[in-house]
């Protein structure tokens, strides 16, 4: 599903963010990318979304080599990948339901489909009563649930999340993680970059630990830190 072959990313001239990373993620997997700030987690997420190009090596997403995807095909690639961010990245001038609907409108779906699908997905994330509220009127946890609904509404095969609980309190974080877990259970490949130790330990999923741009540990049913 996602494959990194010897990927190196250097920012500017000398800041090495990733160094010769090899990583393979199978369809339907749930993977945590863990590590301290600056270890390269976010760089991996941004490379998957083709927000930038690697300095060396190649990345495959859904069997297509990202470096040979032309600029005009990037939107199509992004529709295959739902994404969730620490700062939610909701459109401030649109209500919760309009934000979710926008992700469907960009793919040119029928108005009728959008009208039935959006309330369903907002119901699924538990926000059906607040669908006409603007992001500014919602709490952090609620905004993150809207952004997950948006990422998932077109049922993409892959969902990537960059610090989805970074701005949230522990109780709210549990809800978000449960939501991601449910999305994974119906077959979506989920990649979560996080340094939320508690969450990683509770979930017992595959953990890929990064340190200064290298993979230092890759363990199925792992924990945040090394278990002795």
């Amino acid at each position: 599903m996602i494959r990194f072959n010897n990927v190196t990313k250097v920012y500017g001239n000398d800041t090495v963010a990733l160094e010769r990373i090899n990583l393979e993620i199978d369809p339907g997997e749930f993977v945590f990318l863990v590590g301290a700030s600056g270890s390269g987690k976010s760089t991996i997420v941004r490379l998957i979304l083709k927000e930038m190009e690697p300095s060396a090596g190649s990345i495959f997403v859904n069997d297509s080599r990202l470096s040979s995807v032309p600029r005009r095909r990037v939107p199509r690639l992004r529709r295959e990948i739902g994404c969730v961010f620490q700062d939610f990245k909701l459109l401030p001038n649109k209500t919760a339901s309009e934000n979710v609907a926008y992700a469907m409108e960009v793919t040119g779906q029928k108005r009728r489909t959008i009208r039935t699908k959006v309330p369903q997905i907002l119901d699924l994330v538990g926000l059906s009563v607040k669908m006409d509220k603007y992001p500014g009127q919602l709490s952090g946890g609620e905004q993150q649930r809207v952004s997950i609904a948006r990422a998932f509404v077109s049922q993409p095969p892959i969902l990537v999340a960059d610090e989805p609980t970074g701005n949230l309190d522990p109780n709210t974080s549990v809800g978000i993680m449960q939501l991601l877990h449910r999305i994974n259970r119906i077959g979506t490949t989920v990649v979560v970059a996080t340094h939320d130790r508690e969450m990683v330990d509770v979930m017992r999923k595959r953990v890929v630990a990064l340190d200064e741009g290298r993979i230092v540990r890759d363990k199925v049913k792992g924990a945040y830190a090394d278990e002795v």
Partner: protein
Amino acid sequence: MRFNLGFFLTEAFKNIRLNLLMSLTAVTTTFICILVLGLGLLVSDHIQGIIGSVREDVSVEVFPPDATSQELDALANKVEGWPEVSRVTEVSEGEAFAEFKDQFKDQPDLYKDLDQGVLPASVQIQLEDPGTANQVAEKLKQEGFTEDDLSYPQQTIDRLNSVTSVVIWGLYGATLLFLIASVLLISNAIRLSIFARRQEIEVMKLVGASDGFVRTPFVFEGLLQGLVGSLLAALAVIWINYLFIDWAHDALPFVPVSDAAVNAPLMLLTLVVAGVGIGVIGSFLSVTRFLRKI
């Protein structure tokens, strides 16, 4: 992909409402630029109209210096025999003065202190065809009259051209500068409004919106702003045109200003197309430039 006009228009209207001040700036800028462009076109249309109506004039006038009435008669008789000429009239000093008084009967101040002899006697030659005016003038010069003794259309046109060409080129120059300024101002206004929404655009791109999908609402926005601004300006130009024609008929009765000189619907269309074009091109360019950067 389906082209969802309703969605794009709704988005454009929403953007305009949310960024009302910026939209007003863009509309005002368009308004001023199109107004100046329209006034330039108006002036040049009227000058062309005046030149056209002078060219249609079928008369040549001769003012023989210090001529007696016998000399006038002799000249009139001779000219009457020429094939280009349809009719010849002699105008004595007294008749010329009477005609002048008649033309300005509303403004007696103009002539109340004047003598009869101030206006020269003349022979007015009516031609069959206005195109022959220059030949007839040449013939009269061979008869010993100088350029100053004659009045014929080409003279008036040359004089008009020497005065107006400066004015017209000045206007064209000013119009061009204003057009350039307006494209810059509008694309700048749009760029500012895009910059204010850059995060929004980045988010749109992240959820898989194509460049075209992000751009279309902005282009519609530019189109609507251009349309409103230029339509108001075009209506103002046409209104100013009618005010000018009315004023000219009263204040400049001997200048052939005609309301036929300006084709009002064509003027309206030209200005609106120019305004819409500026809005569309300006917004398209600035969004495309921004999209390349992310």
